[in-house]
């Protein structure tokens, strides 16, 4: 572990009566600025360029597939009766779930005064927004005539002379996801303004200075501004916390409010939220472990941060495992024939491979995090989080496809087979996500400098004035 920490201090060790340092090294405010700004100011590294080219190519491929879909119709997917939802909805729920970690880190951990969030919240929030962008793509193109998707909005239409149906969970979903996307964007942008001002003040190039000048809205660091800003930030966090819990709850209503066996369960809202946080943290770690190395941010994103996130993965992974078990128990306990069949079919039916992949990745693999060695070794964390990502995709696949493929009428049963367009769109959505993320790394402050400095200020204050008397 000492390899990863420049000054040899292991901040994962708990010392009684002390707060473990979250910023390592003989550092000061200016060094934080330098460390973060160099990411965007230096020339892009070869690995960044290669990564960007690959992601951008995948994004183009996604675009081509979407055009092909528009031109040909939704028959290009493997969605067939009775499995009308198929991969587009699997991908939607997968990406929305990933989008939950960012706001959770920013809002809920902020409200709980978990200061270790400061160095990871920016990237996690960015990830939230990019994941919501990926998620929003899928229901948008899944509506069939995507160019009429604006009919979802309650506007006085001259063509329809009618309004959306507000008693449908699918419409709740439209409001939940779009509100979530908007509020996350505001939260992210607002959090970035002081750091964009730092970028502005460091810019040598006139155009760069102007661009960051416009983006930072003339931020001067005035303490009156800071006071209102802090208040607004706390208020937004307080608003985003219930929002983040409501979004995946409402996504789960898409399923739970229906009558399909295996979907119609009251456990879905908490189970979906736990799964969303679980998958979101896994994705944050998957991205953070290589990027902290490549961007040289090891002093700010320390092993302790990774350790903490692994603990959250362990907790939420166990909740997800408990939910899987509870579902089975209730299916047996409820004695509804269709429900019992739906669950036995999941585990031992034609999709048994998907179910057991899900259980292995989501329930068994995070249990390794009970061991501290695994929580503090970046490459092991990386591998486990990859498993979690795969498992969470399979969870959505299992829920969507197994329930639809065999519901009440056996004569209508079918087996789902994805087409090349399904595959391309799943992979292409990663292209969209990574393109946005890599651009973000180059153009925006990847770490919240202002908050990290304020954490450092507290650290300095504690060192100077001693612990305990504050």
């Amino acid at each position: 572990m000492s390899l990863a920490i420049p000054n040899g201090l292991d901040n994962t060790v708990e010392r009684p009566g002390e707060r473990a340092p979250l910023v390592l090294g003989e550092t000061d405010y200016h060094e934080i600025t330098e460390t973060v700004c160099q990411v965007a100011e230096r020339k892009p590294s070869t690995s960044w360029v290669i990564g960007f080219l690959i992601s951008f190519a995948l994004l183009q491929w996604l675009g081509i597939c979407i055009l092909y879909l528009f031109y040909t119709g939704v028959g290009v997917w493997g969605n067939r009766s009775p499995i009308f939802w198929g991969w587009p909805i699997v991908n939607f729920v997968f990406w929305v779930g990933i989008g939950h970690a960012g706001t959770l880190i920013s809002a809920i951990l902020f409200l709980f005064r978990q200061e270790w969030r400061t160095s990871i919240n920016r990237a996690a929030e960015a990830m939230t927004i990019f994941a919501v962008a990926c998620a929003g793509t899928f229901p948008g193109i899944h509506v069939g005539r995507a160019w009429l998707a604006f009919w979802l909005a309650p506007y006085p239409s001259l063509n329809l002379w009618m309004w959306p149906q507000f008693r449908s969970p699918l419409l709740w979903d439209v409001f939940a996801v779009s509100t979530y996307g908007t509020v996350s964007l505001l939260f992210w942008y607002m959090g970035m303004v002081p750091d964009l001002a730092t970028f502005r003040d460091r810019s040598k190039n006139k155009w760069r200075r102007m661009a960051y000048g416009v983006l930072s809205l003339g931020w001067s660091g005035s303490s009156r501004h800071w006071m209102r800003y802090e208040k607004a930030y706390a208020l937004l966090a307080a608003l985003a916390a219930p929002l983040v819990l409501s979004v995946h709850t409402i996504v789960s209503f898409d399923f739970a409010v229906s009558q399909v066996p295996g979907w119609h369960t009251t456990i879905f809202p908490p189970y979906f939220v736990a799964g969303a946080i679980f998958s979101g943290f896994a994705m944050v770690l998957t991205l953070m472990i290589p990027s902290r190395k490549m961007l040289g941010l090891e002093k700010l994103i320390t092993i302790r941060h990774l350790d903490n996130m692994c603990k959250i993965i362990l907790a939420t992974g166990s909740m997800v495992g408990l939910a899987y078990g509870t579902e089975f128990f209730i299916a047996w306990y409820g004695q509804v024939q269709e429900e019992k069949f739906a669950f036995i079919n999941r585990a031992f039916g034609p999709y048994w491979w998907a179910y057991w992949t899900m259980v292995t990745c989501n329930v068994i693999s995070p249990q390794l995090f009970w061991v501290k060695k695994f929580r503090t070794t970046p490459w092991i964390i990386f591998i486990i989080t990859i498993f979690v990502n795969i498992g969470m995709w399979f969870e959505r696949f299992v829920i969507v496809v197994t329930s639809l493929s065999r519901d009440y009428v056996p004569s209508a049963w079918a087996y789902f087979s994805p087409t090349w367009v399904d595959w391309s769109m799943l992979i292409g959505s990663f292209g969209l996500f990574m393109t946005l993320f890599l651009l973000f790394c180059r153009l925006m402050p990847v770490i919240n400098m202002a908050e990290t400095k304020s954490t450092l200020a507290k650290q300095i204050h504690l060192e100077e004035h001693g612990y305990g008397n504050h």
Partner: protein
Amino acid sequence: MSENNEKKVHGIVAEYTSVDSLLNACRRVRDAGYKKTDAFAPFAVHGIDKALGIKPTVLPWIVFGCGAVGAVVGLAMQIWMNSIDYPYIISGKPMISLPAFIPVAYELTILFAAFGAFFGMWALNGLPRFSNPIFTDPRFDRVTDDRFFLYIDSKDEQFDEAGIRQLFGDTGTDYIQTVVDDDSSSKVPKGFFVAWAVVIGLSVIPVLVVLKMRLTNSNLPRFHVFFDMDFSPSKDAQQTTTLFADGRAMRPDVAGTVARGDMLIDMDFMTGIDMEALTQVDARRAERLVRSFAEPSPQQAAEQPPVAAEDEKVAPEDDPAATDAAATPAAEAAENNDSQGEGSDEAETAKPAAPVAEPSVMDTTPWLTENPLELNKELLERGQTYFGIYCSVCHGLNGGGNGLVNRRAQKILATKWIPPSKLNQSTLAQDVYPDGKMFNTISNGIRKMPGYAAQITTRDRWAIVAYVRALQQSQNASIDEVPAAEQEAILKQQAEVKKQLEEQAAAEAAQAAAKPTEKE
């Protein structure tokens, strides 16, 4: 900057390097009585609001107000849209089903409150503000890095440059500076406006195009990038399609099914022929007839049941020679040519006329002599209705053969027109022209008259036969056959009608005389 005295002084700023020194300086400035002060820092410094005497913000109230508005808007919108303006009943829930409206109202509450927090904060802070005199000092760039600044505005009542410099000097700063007007150009580069204009201009174009399309009329068909569901192109007969493996747009009946109207229940009823008798006379033809009903070719199934197809295209019975010449070949043609349900002209020319002496198939067919339906008032009225709809245009309402079409044909001297039969003539009387034969004629047509099997149901065709019989009787009857009670009324009516007709004829004659040239 003493050399810049002519410039407007905005205030004085001092630089500090640590949080503690800044807080210390803030307290001293506050205690010295300065009100219009501000501190600048790279992060939110705790305790600075107390040190500077900054009042708490009203932002939470704005956020609360926005959230309340969001909740009300969310609920009102849903209730108005789904319960009042366009009431939906879903799952038997009440019109205003609050639980179902909670999620959207909840989301809108958060959305509005978040807007309130975000925009409210910027508005209270007076941002965006791109030109700020404090930015004139290049050293101030470090305020977003690692330096802290304390500022006293010149608008402060106690403002006194020397005194403030003294005060700042005592707080341990090594950099004190007067903030003056920015002398750099405040002009926005021209390129910026050009780019702005181009972006606005381009983004307006699609809106204008859509508006023009919506607000103006056009003779051209609607423009569709993608076709809507109301556009469903249909194939014409005989066209090909890629939808089916056999490439045929016209679909055969599904195996083992009977199309509506093709149900074979009573062959006598459907053909007007006594099938039992026909089997004895000509078993082959009877079999063929049954088969043509049982296995209609795809086209026939779609368009017209092949009612006694082979008996069609017979020559007018007024001319026995022609009847004989055409009847037999037509009968044969139907067998050879099942893609064309009707015995065709082609068949007539392909196979030369049979010997004249052979009796017509029309005469040898054992037609039903009586209407298979029970005769009653209801049936006759039905027949009258359908006679009025389909037959009277040619045959006339009284069956006299002088319907509108015939009159028109006579008027324009149509050369190929064969006048429709007078239905009350003796050759169509029941004893020489059985009911079955008349039914067959209605079904399959004769001479210029097309078959009506496709348009009139079997039962209604029999009803027409019954009505024609009544017409025949009425047209050839004498007044003595009418019950005595009715005679007087009829005579009276007759006289009235006669008078009207005469008047009308006179008027028409006068009109014709007045406009002698009016003729096509």
